[in-house]
């Protein structure tokens, strides 16, 4: 039971963060349990291993590199319009596409509404054509027959 308890509280036990009673109980257990001693020793070795090495330090040119980055950043601000234009390209392409689709849909609607094509029931006035195009009587009759589908 105590072996299991130790396994569940290993980190807190190593860091001495357990309530005193529990800490003492596990210490007593550890004194008598060889496998738990080994586990605790191995575990604390790994768990504390990172505390042992010296932390790396930033390079000597740390500050000057920051200044360079800041200068690059401010230089890039002038390039912003180009970047902005680049960003606008897909937007412009999208707008062009939408406009094309809208125009074609409108055109289709206009065509379907019949304002561009004479409906089958429309009767064309041949005499108006005759006046407009200076047709003689025979030509007028021909136009009348042809356009109004009369036999």
């Amino acid at each position, binding site marked *: 039971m105590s072996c299991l308890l130790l*396994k*569940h509280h*290993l*980190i*807190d036990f190593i860091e001495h963060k357990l309530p005193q009673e529990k800490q003492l109980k596990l210490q007593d257990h550890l004194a008598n349990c060889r496998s738990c001693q080994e*586990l605790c020793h*191995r*575990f604390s*070795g*790994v*768990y504390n*291993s*990172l505390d042992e*090495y010296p*932390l*790396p*330090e*930033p*390079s000597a040119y*740390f*500050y000057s*590199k*920051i200044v360079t*980055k*800041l200068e690059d*950043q401010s230089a890039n601000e002038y390039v912003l319009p180009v970047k902005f234009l680049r960003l606008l390209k897909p937007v412009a392409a999208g707008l062009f596409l939408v406009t094309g689709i809208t125009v074609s849909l409108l055109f289709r609607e206009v065509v379907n509404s019949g304002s561009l094509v004479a409906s089958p029931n429309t009767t064309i006035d041949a005499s108006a054509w005759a006046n407009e195009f200076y047709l003689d009587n025979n030509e007028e009759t021909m136009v009348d027959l042809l356009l109004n589908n009369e036999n």
Partner: protein
Amino acid sequence: MTDSELIIALVNRNENAFKYLVEKYQGMVYNACFHQLRNMEDAEDIAQEVFVEAYLSISGFRGESKISTWLYRVAINKSKNLVRKNKWQMLVQRLEKFMPGDKQVKIDLEDPSAQDHMEGMEKTEDQKILWNAINSLPENQRIAFTLNKYEELAYQEIAEIMQTSLSAVESLIHRAKLNLQKKLVSHFN
């Protein structure tokens, strides 16, 4: 120089104040980045970006927290973004391996699981085991745990850095420790 004096000087674009800020906090920011990224070059690059952002956005700093807390927050967020970006790139590269028909342009990639997370440092087997175990923790647990163990920050400050509640931090660190325990104990068995 107090924090508020430093902020006023930075807002006025005082170069000496910025140099002072960098000198005072570079070690702290660099270590925080290093503990998240485990790569010296990336840590230095991100730490520099933290100061660049600090310089550019100091006017937006409302002074509700300490400068150090604010810098930690920026450092953690930038590191988190890089970790995510690297993971995404690894995923894409892995997928590219399986793409048919482009064997000639295929790059010989490292296995991400075999990646050296402590590049540029000498390390023992124990340290590698611990790094891998910490690295496998969920993101927020990893951040809270490393800030507590390696930066030795109080739970309240971690809560401010992670912009969460104190109880959430307690829970994150508790779960991180349980997960680490489980991973390390199973490694020894």
